[in-house]
């Protein structure tokens, strides 16, 4: 499915909220986040995702801890911080106000 170019800008803005939501209930490492997004129908390239993850870590919305892996290098597991939860909640509130807006504005 090739997303419409008019939708591309919307999708770009959705990446950050979706990344936060993907680690809301379980910690995941970057590769798992990419897989989760792909399976949800929001494919994202690592070269786009990784800089964002590091930015969110710097902004302390995500926290990380290292864990040894049986199948490769140690993994950096990411989880939501308290600030991250607040941010995700803000995203959701804003998002539903936007959806309300687009459905009601024409009436």
């Amino acid at each position, binding site marked *: 499915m090739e997303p419409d170019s008019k939708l591309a800008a919307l999708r770009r803005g959705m990446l950050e909220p979706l990344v936060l939501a993907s680690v809301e209930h379980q910690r995941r490492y970057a*590769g798992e986040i990419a897989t989760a997004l792909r399976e949800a129908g929001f494919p994202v390239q690592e*070269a786009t995702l990784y800089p964002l993850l*590091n930015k969110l870590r710097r902004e302390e919305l995500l926290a990380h801890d290292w864990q040894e892996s049986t199948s490769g*290098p140690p993994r950096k597991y990411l989880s939501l911080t308290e600030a991250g939860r607040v941010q995700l909640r803000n995203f959701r509130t804003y998002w539903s106000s936007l959806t309300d807006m687009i459905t009601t504005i024409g009436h």
Partner: protein
Amino acid sequence: MEQIHHMSLSGHAETIPLTAAAHAHLVRYLSNTRAALGTDPDADETVRDLETALGDRLRSMATTPGAAIDDEQLARILAETGSVEQEAPPTRILAYPARGRFFCRIGEGSWFGGLCAGIAAYGDFRVDWVRTVALFLLLFTGGTAGLVYLALLLILPKVDTVAEYRRKCSGPVPSR
């Protein structure tokens, strides 16, 4: 038999066997990525993360022991990984920056090119004093000052009014 490069990638203990072309391609990709991240404070970390992710994919691809990954296989992986979008340069809010005092010629009320007016504006002198000094210099140096004057007429930029000169010195005035 083509030469095989063994490349070590961040996080991976084992090296990845690559053909010469694939090796050059991967090195180029990583250095372009680093360049695209520019002044991002996490640039090095991001490159390391990408190296680890690429290493995962390349290792799962290198199933036959000893066989090197060729450029075509690598290109496929890199296409999936994508490239880092260069951050847009910050949009300039100021139309022009404050440049501080600078020498110029000022057209407003000028006698001969506005050089004295420019010097007066530069140093907050009275323009008629500057003109008097300039006239004495011209007389005492026997014309040499005149040559310097002519040269400066050619070199210095021209500003229309004193008010505009001050505006350029201090940058844009915040709009009210």
